[in-house]
């Protein structure tokens, strides 16, 4: 696993830095002291007397190492770029940002406070950044920034008086390549293709899941009802029993058809063992919902022996937290379904904390919704029979997604086999 170099500073070097060998010297200093660099900008003088200019980002493993590098390169004329603290305004009303608010991405972001760069917590796209500063109206003294916090804040949670970052000054976004685990999934450089050898892709996803588990991070699954329709329930149950699923996001449909299968043996009225429609089978899913509602919910149904198998059963048995988010077309819904969209968002936000890998199977809208909440460092594998689902996910900003175009059940069968091997 590639180690993240988290301590970053930018320097400028200008003058006859090529002929004097100052540029290679500075780069050598960075490398020999254990740092890495990215040349962000370079302008070469056109005539011999013209100076050249370069802006270099230095990355180090620790604050001390970064200081050591900065000290060394300073002696060769490299100066920190002229930087200012981030600017902020106090929110003038609840539930909306000030007009000039900084709009976040899902990439790792830092804000400069009191001369220090601090990480923004709860990284999420399409939010603002709220600061937790002691006294919002007085400038922070130099060196005080390290004790401060900044975090992403959804628009609906703004409270009047919150210090909200405005403009781009003192905000920097770490490019994707600096994010953690860059070495993973590298071979799958094009996001989605139906013409890739599935075995290799599945093996890589299995490896990533093993690494995620070993690293103590959570694996999140976002599942659509096709997982049940195609006969994938038992494979998901096996993933849960093997310890490869820590959080489940789904909608009313997945849970309903999973329970339908557990009670009636059908999914959308079709016998899963025979592939034929059952008589009056179209009523099964509604009857399943009704049964669960009558006993007061999924957990209660398990306790009373009404529900004895399936994904939801295994989740409860293994204490796997699940979030069922509702939609306007839901039948029932099941009592556990959260019908207030904003509440569902917040619960999902809470549950994505600590997630290191996300497996999205056969659901477009839940996948996009989850993608919106995940920081870009979380790798995502999106499995769908329709290539457009993966494309849409990437187009909405979740560019860390690797796509597998295949049906749900064959993928899951191969994945479980790979995880067991």
């Amino acid at each position, binding site marked *: 696993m590639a180690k993240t170099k988290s301590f970053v500073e930018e320097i400028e*070097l200008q003058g006859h830095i090529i002929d004097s060998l100052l540029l290679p010297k500075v780069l050598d200093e960075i490398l020999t002291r254990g740092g890495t660099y990215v040349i962000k900008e370079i302008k070469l003088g056109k005539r011999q007397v013209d100076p050249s200019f370069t802006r270099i980002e230095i990355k180090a493993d620790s604050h001390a190492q970064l200081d050591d590098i900065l000290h060394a390169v300073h002696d060769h*004329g490299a100066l920190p770029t002229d930087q200012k603290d981030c600017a902020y305004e106090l929110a003038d009303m609840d539930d909306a940002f000030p007009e000039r608010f900084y709009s976040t991405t899902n990439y790792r972001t830092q804000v400069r406070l009191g001369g220090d760069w601090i990480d923004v917590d709860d990284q999420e796209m399409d939010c603002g950044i709220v600061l937790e500063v002691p006294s919002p109206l007085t400038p922070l003294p130099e060196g005080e920034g390290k004790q401060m916090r900044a975090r992403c804040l959804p628009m609906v949670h703004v409270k009047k008086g919150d210090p909200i970052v405005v403009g781009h000054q003192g905000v920097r976004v770490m490019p994707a390549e600096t994010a953690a685990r860059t070495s993973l999934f590298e071979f799958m450089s094009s996001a989605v293709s139906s013409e890739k050898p599935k075995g290799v892709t599945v093996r890589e996803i299995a490896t990533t899941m093993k690494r995620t588990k070993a690293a103590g991070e959570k694996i999140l699954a976002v599942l659509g009802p096709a997982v049940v329709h195609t006969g994938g329930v038992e494979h998901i149950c096996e993933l849960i029993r093997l310890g490869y699923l820590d959080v489940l996001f789904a909608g009313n449909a997945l849970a309903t058809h999973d329970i339908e299968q557990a009670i009636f043996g059908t999914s959308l009225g079709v016998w899963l063992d025979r592939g034929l429609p059952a008589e009056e089978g179209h009523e099964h899913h509604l009857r399943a919902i009704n049964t669960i509602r009558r006993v007061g919910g999924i957990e209660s149904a398990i306790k009373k022996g009404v529900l004895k198998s399936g994904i939801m059963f295994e989740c409860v048995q293994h204490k796997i937290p699940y979030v069922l988010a509702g939609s306007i077309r839901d039948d029932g819904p099941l009592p556990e379904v959260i019908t207030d969209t904003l509440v569902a968002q917040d619960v999902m936000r809470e549950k994505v904390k600590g997630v290191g890998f996300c497996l999205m199977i056969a659901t477009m809208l839940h996948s996009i919704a989850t993608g919106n909440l995940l920081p870009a460092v979380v790798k995502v594998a999106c499995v769908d029979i329709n290539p457009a689902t993966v494309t849409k996910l990437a187009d909405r900003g979740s560019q860390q997604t690797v796509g597998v175009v295949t049906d749900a059940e064959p993928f899951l069968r191969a994945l479980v086999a790979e995880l067991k091997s």
Partner: protein
Amino acid sequence: MKNPRILMCPADHYGIEYEINPWMSRARGAAPDRARQQWRDLHDTLVKLGVQIELMTPQPGLPDLVFTANAGLVFGKRFFSSRFTHPERQRETPHFDAWFAAHGFSVERLPEGVYFEGAGDALFCGPILFAGYRIRSHAAGHLHLGNALQRMVLPVELIDKRFYHLDTCFCPLSPDEAIYFPGAFDAYGRTVLQKHIPKLIEVVEKEAERFACNAVVVGKKVVVNAGSDQLAADLQQAGYECLSVELDEFIKAGGSAKCLTLRLDGEDAAVW
């Protein structure tokens, strides 16, 4: 051809009153009468070579004012005043600035916090200004100077504290020729000098330690401290004549012929 013009400051108040380089020792001190005589010999040697000497008024309490090379960098009628590293020498600046202002130069300064010790660390060889850094001057100051002069400035790192100024280990003779002591530079610096100066004459360590590189060049005559025999022979080969002047009283302070002079009309090696 106009006579070369050089600024000097008589050694009336010269002495070792503090220690700011490895050469200085207050315990050993300098012999005032002998120092004044050696300064006079250098002065007279230069006058005989046709140099027009300008004299500054020596100041009590400023023993190093005698080393006029460190006043600043002269470029045409512009004078880039030094920002000395050591407070002991910072007191010299008002006197140098006043002299240059009174003699028709525009006095310019480098940004605050950037150290720069004048012609001691900045020497033209051809159109390029070679600039020593790390020990006394900052690379950032030299890079700034390049912008101000609109000339190529190549900072070279000095790595031996004995050779704390560029003019103690490097001396341009002509636009394409210089003497240097390689051991004073790091590998990058040596490469830069070798790449940009077609003819480089190496000075041996024994003579470099006697400040053989701290020479005053007037046409084809090179004035150096006595005892630079190997260099004298090498210079003769290259078509130069070496004139020796005993300057050991000034070596006690870490300076020699070049440090005691500041060319006001551009060095012979400079192409502006």
